[in-house]
């Protein structure tokens, strides 16, 4: 039996992310065990819910390592929880695959730490690339004050200049706010603004989208990968969401992927299994957990051992692994193994996702 540890934020402010992650991990471990496990051994998942509290996450990480004696840890739904798990993983020399976005997690590279989601910097880059194509040079930014929004905001500000784009209005909202019309009114009124970017997750982006349509801003609206789930369209309302663009993963558009797409099989399988099992729509975040587990299982398989050090080395040499987020090829310098091509620029049309290009 191989014990794998996980601590995710299945409840709390990030449960929007953590809940599908937890469900995915449970589902996949069951699936893998049913198919005979890894190296002939069954997997055992020890899963804790840290509620989004970094302090709790650290305690659970300690528990996973010291008490449950797992061979690897998956988790850290948010950057905050991830950052507080890292010292534990590094200290006790256990590989750790994070499910959070910030680039700091893997840059600089830490020996025992990996992650599966694109960095938020990549999301910014993908969006700005698209804006550049549309000859947009002046934008307004609105972001949530939670970790996700703030971190993405920071990364976007850092790279926006590379694309010749200028931020002419910069606003924020609280994660639980009910109305963002004042902020959007200010952005709308900013001189020369040509498009608006919203970095955030949870209910905020839905409300931003609705308010955006209420105010008839009439400029292109970009959302982040933080809202990449089918639920978003329903929450924002198909009418308000019409024309919204965002960088998403193949998972969201499984149905309309070209047949030759390398990810098609993987995302379709995961989507079908997840939706059958839980009855709710897949989201990008569950996909992060999916990829993390598969990277881990692949590594254990290749290492032919369940020694943490061996697993770590094998993870680092992951190559060409097809996940929901993209095709992963890691190296000693790259503990993420994804590039921009993994992101697809999506646009909402007639209440559904379409791929731009």
């Amino acid at each position, binding site marked *: 039996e191989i014990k794998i540890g996980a601590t995710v934020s*299945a*409840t*709390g*402010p990030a*449960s*929007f992310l953590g*809940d599908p992650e937890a469900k995915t991990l449970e589902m996949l471990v069951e699936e893998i065990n049913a198919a005979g496990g890894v190296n002939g051994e069954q997997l055992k998942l020890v899963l804790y819910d840290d509620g989004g509290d970094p302090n709790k996450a650290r305690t659970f990480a300690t528990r996973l390592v010291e008490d449950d004696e797992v061979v690897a840890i998956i988790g850290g739904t948010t950057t905050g929880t991830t950052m507080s798990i890292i010292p534990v993983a590094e200290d006790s020399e256990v590989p750790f695959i994070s499910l959070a976005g910030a680039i700091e997690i893997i840059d600089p590279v830490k020996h025992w730490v990996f992650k599966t989601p694109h960095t938020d910097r990549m999301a910014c880059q993908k969006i700005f690339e698209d804006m550049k194509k549309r000859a947009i040079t002046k934008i307004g930014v609105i972001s949530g*004050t939670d970790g996700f929004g703030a971190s993405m905001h920071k990364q976007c500000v850092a790279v926006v200049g590379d694309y010749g784009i200028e931020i002419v209005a910069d*606003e*924020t*909202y*609280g994660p*639980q*706010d*009910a*109305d963002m*019309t*004042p*902020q959007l*009114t*200010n952005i709308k*009124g900013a001189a020369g603004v040509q498009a608006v970017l919203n970095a955030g997750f*949870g*209910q905020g982006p*839905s*409300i931003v989208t*609705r308010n955006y*349509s*209420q*105010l*008839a801003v009439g400029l292109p609206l970009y959302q982040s990968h933080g809202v990449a789930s089918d*639920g978003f369209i*329903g*929450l924002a*309302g198909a*009418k*308000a969401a019409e024309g919204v663009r965002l960088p998403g993963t193949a998972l969201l558009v499984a149905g309309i992927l070209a047949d030759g797409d390398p990810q098609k099989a993987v995302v379709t399988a995961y989507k079908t299994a997840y939706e059958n099992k839980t009855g*709710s729509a897949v989201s990008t975040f569950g996909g992060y957990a999916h990829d993390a587990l598969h990277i881990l299982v692949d590594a254990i398989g290749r290492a032919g051992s369940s020694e943490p050090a061996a697993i770590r080395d094998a993870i680092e040499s992951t190559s060409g692994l097809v996940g929901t987020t993209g095709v992963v090829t890691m190296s000693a310098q790259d503990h993420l193994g994804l590039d921009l091509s993994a992101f697809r620029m999506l646009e909402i049309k007639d209440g559904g996702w379409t791929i731009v290009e």
Partner: protein
Amino acid sequence: MPELMQFLLSGLTVGAVYALVALGFTIIYNASDVVNFAQGEFVMLGGMITVFAFDAGLPLPLAAAIAIAVTAAIGVALNKLAIGPARGAPVVSLIIITIGASIFIRGVTQLVFDKQLHRFPAFTGDDPIHILGATILPQSLWVIAGAVVVFVALWLFFTRTLTGKAVLATSNNRLAAQLVGINTNWVMTLSFALSAAIGALAGVLVTPITLTSYDLGIALALKGFAAAMLGGMGNPKGALVGGILLGLFEALTAGFLSSQYKDAVAFVVILAVLFAMPQGLFGRNSVNRV
């Protein structure tokens, strides 16, 4: 000036949401001196139950009615099972019970329903109404109207009816209330039912705007609590005015100063008001001779 108008309308919308939550606090507070920290959960339940009943195919008004009735019943159960048995306990203990209850309700909701965000359609569509160059959604008008109606009803209840007075008497002096023949247990039951129902009604009205999920209650309860204190705890007028003011501060700060510190500014204003008026804007100054 359309900007200012837009800020005001936004403030009014959000303020009405806070006011509805704050109004829910008043009854239980007036009956027992307890700030019910599970009030936000009532709002959440109102929204969640409506969502699921609606998704199950019931017409929206029926779904809403069911949500309000079920939530009121949960309020009564909370009183009967948790607050009632702890009668005579210090107020802090009662507060911890209500915090425990809120955690419990949240936990059960997440089991019975799910952890996703939900929403049902606005009552009368999403086409914005234009006022002096600014816009407001029809649902916001529903929320504002709801807040005003609940306020008027509560105000009449506490000033014009003997039952309302019995509620006040129960919190003022439970012992004396029993001596004059008031069934204080019944008063408590009534208060919890009414408070929960008002909370659920708030949930029904605001969900199309704020969306709902199992953990939406905390944030709303906190803002509603702050609004109620700003206006003066226990006074329906205070709840209404406090809620609207809080919403306006936030919107105007977000509009003119900094959206990052809008909550902070709102709290600074509350602190300033309390500094000048330690009982809030309309709080009754209880006289106790020595």
